[in-house]
């Protein structure tokens, strides 16, 4: 091949690369928009189909028919369905989810208050799950059929089988009451609550911003138990998946190649095999993270954690439809976001997926 033709070919690939990048960005944006639109449509329809009368929830059962009709008109519920949907979408796009009947705040403000609590808990739990779960899975895979494998499996199975409310109560009983290693329910000791100005809403970060280490360690000691208990579940799942992905990779030819080269077993496992394991594993981790971001109602109740799960459940029990729909949209949006993030990571980890 002459130098000239090679140059031409390189030039062409570069041109394709640029249009490819812009193209894939547009494709991603388009599919995001479609997904979000679908999400809004579904939540809207569910809100209209549910046998809960939002007017009645607002005015109470003793209101007169004329009051009822007036409020119904104010809420726009007399309009045709497509018009209601149009109003709903344009409101949501402006961040207006309506008002919560229960708290009489704007739903968005409520969510801004509760979501950081869930985000913080889910993030810490996922970090613990990943940091312990991946090595446990690798350890089980390289000792397949021997006792470390069985130990990891039994621990994982136990994590999966124990009801979380029981585990949470036992955790409080042992580590809070008996041993006094951690703090009890809530995000901070009641004494400290007023000291902290919510900047991000994430206690660990807000206390660091304030530079108050006492507060910071207090927040850590509050979050560590519920986060560990949530982490136990994602840990069990992540370890299980890591083990099976690892076994699959270790039987591949390129592992034999690496052995032929005389590379250490340590490097073969942690660099060669794990590099390939991370590709499918990133999706597993992302999905388990997204699940935790929904808020876990039972954990939040037991640990008096003012998170999203607790908020949505309370709203649902009180027929507070604006809050329920708002919360659902937020959960859906978080799912979409986490999925997109895992797609991006997938591309980073697997050169074959880059186009």
């Amino acid at each position, binding site marked *: 091949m002459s130098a000239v033709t090679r140059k031409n070919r390189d030039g062409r690939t570069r041109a394709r690369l640029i249009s490819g990048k812009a193209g894939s960005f547009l494709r991603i944006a388009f599919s995001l928009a479609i997904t979000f639109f679908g999400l809004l449509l579904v939540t809207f329809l569910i809100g209209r189909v549910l046998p809960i009368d939002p007017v009645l929830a607002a005015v109470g059962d003793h209101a007169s028919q004329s009051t009822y009709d007036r409020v119904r008109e104010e809420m726009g519920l007399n309009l045709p369905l497509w018009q209601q949907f149009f109003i709903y979408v344009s409101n949501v796009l402006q961040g207006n989810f309506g008002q919560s009947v229960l708290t009489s705040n704007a739903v968005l403000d409520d969510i801004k208050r509760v979501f950081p609590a869930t985000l913080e808990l889910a993030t810490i739990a996922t970090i613990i799950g990943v940091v312990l779960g991946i090595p446990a899975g690798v350890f089980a895979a390289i000792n397949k059929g021997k006792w470390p494998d069985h130990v990891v499996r039994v621990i994982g199975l136990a994590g999966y089988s124990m009801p979380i409310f029981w585990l949470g109560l036992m955790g409080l009983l042992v580590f809070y009451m008996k041993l006094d290693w951690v703090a009890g329910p809530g995000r901070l000791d009641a004494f400290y609550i007023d000291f902290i100005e919510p900047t991000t809403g994430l206690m660990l970060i807000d206390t660091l911003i304030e530079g108050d280490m006492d507060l910071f360690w207090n927040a850590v000691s509050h979050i560590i138990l519920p986060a560990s208990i949530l982490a136990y579940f994602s840990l069990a799942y992540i370890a299980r998946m890591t083990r099976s992905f690892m076994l699959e990779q270790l039987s591949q030819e*390129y592992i034999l190649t690496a052995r032929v080269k*005389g*590379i250490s077993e340590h490097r073969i496992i942690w660099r*060669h095999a794990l590099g390939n394991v991370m590709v499918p594993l990133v999706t597993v981790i992302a999905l388990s993270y997204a699940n935790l971001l929904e808020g876990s109602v039972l954990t939040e109740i037991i640990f008096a954690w003012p998170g999203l799960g607790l908020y949505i459940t309370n709203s649902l029990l009180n027929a507070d439809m604006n809050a329920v729909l708002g919360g659902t949209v937020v959960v859906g949006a978080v799912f979409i976001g986490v999925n997109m993030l895992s797609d991006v990571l997938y591309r980073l980890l697997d050169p*074959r997926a880059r186009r």
Partner: protein
Amino acid sequence: MSNEPLLTVKNLEVTFNTPKGEVNAVRGVSFNLGRERLGIVGESGSGKSQTGRAILGLTAANGRITADQLTFHDVDLANLTPKQWRKVRGARISMIMQDPKYSLNPVMTIGDQIIEAYREHHKVNAKEARHRAIDMLEAVKIRDPERVFNSYPHEVSGGMGQRVMIAMMLIPDPELIIADEPTSALDVTVQLQVMAILDDLVRDRGMALIFISHDLQLVSSFCDRVLVMYQGHVVEELAASALHEAKHPYTKGLLNCLPKMDGDHGDLPILEREASWAEG
């Protein structure tokens, strides 16, 4: 050919424990290897690949290797610790695998994989290693070594991938190369090209070669000596130039299966097997 043998294999046996009982993949193989090019031919399941793997101690976990003697120079390959193995593998004995599509790590760049092979056995800095790797890619006749160095395995063709494999396995300068069907996964058109590159490098660097293949013609044109294996036994050993003098009916049968350019064009004969061949 030097008189002092590089590799001595005496009565090598490889046995696998399977749910259906024991399988003897290699049954009493013996040969000596000097600085020469030895071909091992045989059909699938004849034990030729397992012989190659046993020399590197890379038999699968459910397999067992026994031998009266298995020595490389003065190293007893039958009793090496994992740490001692790492000094032999790559550095002194290396192996070229069959299919670059599966035998290269898909998420590491080609350059990283070659550098890794080199730096495992030579204490050099990253820059020097990169130099060496690029030189090596040039040595296997890759025209654009910089680009290939930064590519991932899926971005190069099969023939290119196999040259990368050769570069990676030859860069630590081993004394013995085992090539296990190195061209079987490639297009017929590039098979000879790749083989010629391997052959040149092995000659230039004075390496010994064990060339494992099912292709009797290919083996005879690149090797000095040929072992013919059948069901775990060596049934015949021949000089590559003297294939026509083959005495064993299996070897004769294999040669007769090949179409000839001249002579009659009737049906090709079918290999008639005899149970006694498997007795060795």
